[in-house]
C-alpha cells in the first residue's frame, strides 16, 4: 500500500477534486442547510410579492418583475455565507487538523467549500426563478441575456463565498460566524434597490444604496431579465466582484496557513 507517484500539480488537482466531491455530497446529505437556504428567501419573496408589494411604486415595471432580481441576489448572498459556516465547522470539529496532518494541499479544502456553495446556490436560484414564474414573474430576456445574467450571478456568488471563507477562518465560534455574516449581508442586501426603489430613502442612505456593489449587481440583473435601463451597472458590478475575489483568495490562503501556528 504505497502512495502513487505523480507531480505536485497532479496531486493539487486530485486533492481539490476529492474535497469538492466531499463538499458536494454535503449539499444533499445536509438537507437542513439546503432547506434553510431555499425556504427563507422563498418566504421573503412571498412576503414582498403579496404583502408589501402592493404599497411599493416601481413605475413602469410591475412589482413582481422588479422584485425578482433583488430576491435572487439576496438568495445568492445569504447562500454564499454558508461557506463561512462550513469552514468554521471544519475548523472547530478538528477535521482540519486531520487534513493538515496529511501530505496533501490544505488550501484545496476552501476550494471544495466554495465550489459546493456555487452549486448549492445554483439550485436555490433555480427554485426561486421557478416559484417566481408561478407568482407572476414575466422575464423578457433572450438566451444571451440569461447567459450573461448567470455569469454575473456566479461571479458575485464566487466573490461573496471567498469573502465568507475569510469570516469562517476569522471567527472563533460557529455562533459568531452566524451573526458576523448576518451583519455583513443584511445591510448590503436591504440598503439597496433589491426591494424598493432608492428614491424614497433618506439622503445618506440613498447615496450608500445607489453606489454599493450589490445594488449595481441587482440593477444589472434587472436590466438583463426585465429590460430596465442597464447603464454602467453591469461593468461596475463585474469589476467590484473580480476585485473582491482577487483580494479574498490570497487573504484566505494566508490566513489558512497561519491558522493556529
Amino acid at each position, binding site marked *: *500500500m*504505497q*502512495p*502513487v507517484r*505523480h507531480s505536485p500539480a497532479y*496531486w493539487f488537482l*486530485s*486533492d481539490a477534486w*476529492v474535497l469538492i466531491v*466531499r463538499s458536494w*455530497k*454535503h449539499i444533499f*446529505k*445536509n438537507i437542513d442547510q439546503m432547506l434553510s437556504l431555499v425556504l427563507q428567501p422563498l418566504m421573503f419573496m412571498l412576503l414582498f410579492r403579496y404583502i408589501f408589494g402592493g404599497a411599493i411604486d416601481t413605475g413602469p415595471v410591475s412589482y413582481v418583475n422588479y422584485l425578482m432580481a433583488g430576491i435572487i441576489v439576496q438568495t445568492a448572498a445569504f447562500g454564499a455565507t454558508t461557506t463561512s459556516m462550513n469552514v468554521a465547522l471544519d475548523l472547530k*470539529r*478538528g*477535521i482540519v*487538523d*486531520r*487534513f*493538515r*496532518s*496529511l*501530505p*496533501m494541499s490544505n488550501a484545496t479544502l476552501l476550494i471544495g467549500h466554495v465550489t459546493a456553495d456555487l452549486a448549492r446556490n445554483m439550485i436555490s436560484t433555480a427554485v426561486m426563478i421557478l416559484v417566481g414564474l408561478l407568482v407572476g414573474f414575466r422575464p423578457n430576456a433572450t438566451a444571451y441575456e440569461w447567459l450573461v445574467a448567470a455569469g454575473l450571478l456566479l461571479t458575485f456568488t464566487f466573490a461573496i463565498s471567498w469573502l465568507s471563507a475569510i469570516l469562517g477562518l476569522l471567527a472563533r465560534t460557529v455562533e459568531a460566524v452566524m451573526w458576523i455574516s448576518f451583519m455583513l449581508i443584511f445591510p448590503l442586501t436591504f440598503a439597496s434597490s433589491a426591494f424598493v426603489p432608492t428614491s424614497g430613502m433618506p439622503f445618506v442612505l440613498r447615496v450608500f444604496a445607489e453606489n454599493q456593489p450589490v445594488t449595481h449587481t441587482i440593477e444589472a440583473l434587472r436590466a438583463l431579465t426585465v429590460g430596465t435601463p442597464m447603464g454602467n451597472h453591469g461593468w461596475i458590478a463585474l469589476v467590484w466582484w473580480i476585485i473582491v475575489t482577487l483580494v479574498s483568495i490570497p487573504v484566505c490562503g494566508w490566513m489558512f496557513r497561519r491558522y*493556529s*501556528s
Partner: protein
Amino acid sequence: MPGTDAIVVRSLVKSFKKVNVLEGITFSVPRGTMLALLGPNGAGKTTTIRILSTLLRPDGGEVRVNGFDVVREADAVRAVIGLTGQYAAVDEYLTGRENLEMMGRLYHLSAADSRRRATELLEQFDLADAAKRASKTYSGGMRRRLDLAASLVAAPPILFLDEPTTGLDPRSRLMMWDVIGKLLHDGATILLTTQYLEEADKLANRIAVMDRGRVIAEGTAAELKSKVGKDRLELTLERENDLERAGTSIERADVTLRTEERSVSVAIDRVEDVQHILNRLENAGITVAGLSLHKPTLDDVFLQLTGREPAGRSTASRQAEEKKEPAPVPTR
C-alpha cells in the same frame, strides 16, 4: 532507517502569548514501542502531539520524527504519521466507508487501493455493518474507532494518539485498548497521551509523566509505581480488640493499623495475596466487616512526585473537594 529512535524530542519549548506551555521537554521513543505521556489537563500533552504531527511550530528545541525535522521536512513527516485527536475528526455527513476512502485519496493512494484499504479497516474495526451509514449516526465508541481507522489508512509506521479513550464508556474503552495493543504488536511506534495511569500502565512500554510543561518523571510502569507505592488492601474489622492480633497474624512487611477506624492497611503485590491474608485472618478467628482495594492513581503519582494534586483541574471540582471538611487524612 536513521537511528533506533522513531521519535526524538530535545529541549522542546513552546509558548502562546507569553504563557509557557512547554518548558523544555526531552524524550525519545524507540522504534516499535509505545510511550505514554501521562498528565492532567493543561500539562502540555496535546501541544506536544500537535507539534510532533506538524500542526504547530515549536519555538525552540529539536523534534525529529522518523529522522525528519518537523519544521523543515514537514511533508516527509506527514507521509509517515497517523494522528488521532481528542475529538473524532471525521466527516459526520459522510458514511464510514466514504470517510476512509476520502482519507486514502488524500494520503495519495490510488482509488483502487483506497477502496481495498477502506474495506479492510471497516472489517478490522468492527464497523462493516455500519459502513453505509452517515458517521453522525454512530455511537461515541464507533466514531472513535472510525477516527482511529482514518489515521491508519496509509498504514503509517508512527502513530500519535491524543487521549484516544477520554469520554468513552468502559466497553468501548476496552475495545480501543485491544485495537491499540494490536497496532503495537504489529510493529507501530506509538505516542499516546492519557490522563489515566491505568491506561498508560496497560498499554505502554514506557511512561513520561508531564506537569506544567515539563516531564517530571520517566520510566516503565513498574518503575513509576514503585515510586508511588503498591496496591493496598484496606480491611475493616468487626471488633476493635482484634486489631493487634490481626497485625501480627497477617505477617507482611508493610502493615498499618488505625485504631479509631478499626482498620488495617496492607501493601500487596498480587491478587493472590488478598486470598492469603483473608485466610490467615479467618484461621486466627478474626471477622472482617469490610474490604476495599486501593490502586495507585495519577493523583498518587503526582502527590508523590510533586507533593501536590495535579494542576489544571477544573475549579469546580477543586472547590467541591475543598468543601469536604476536614481534609481527608492520607491513608499511608
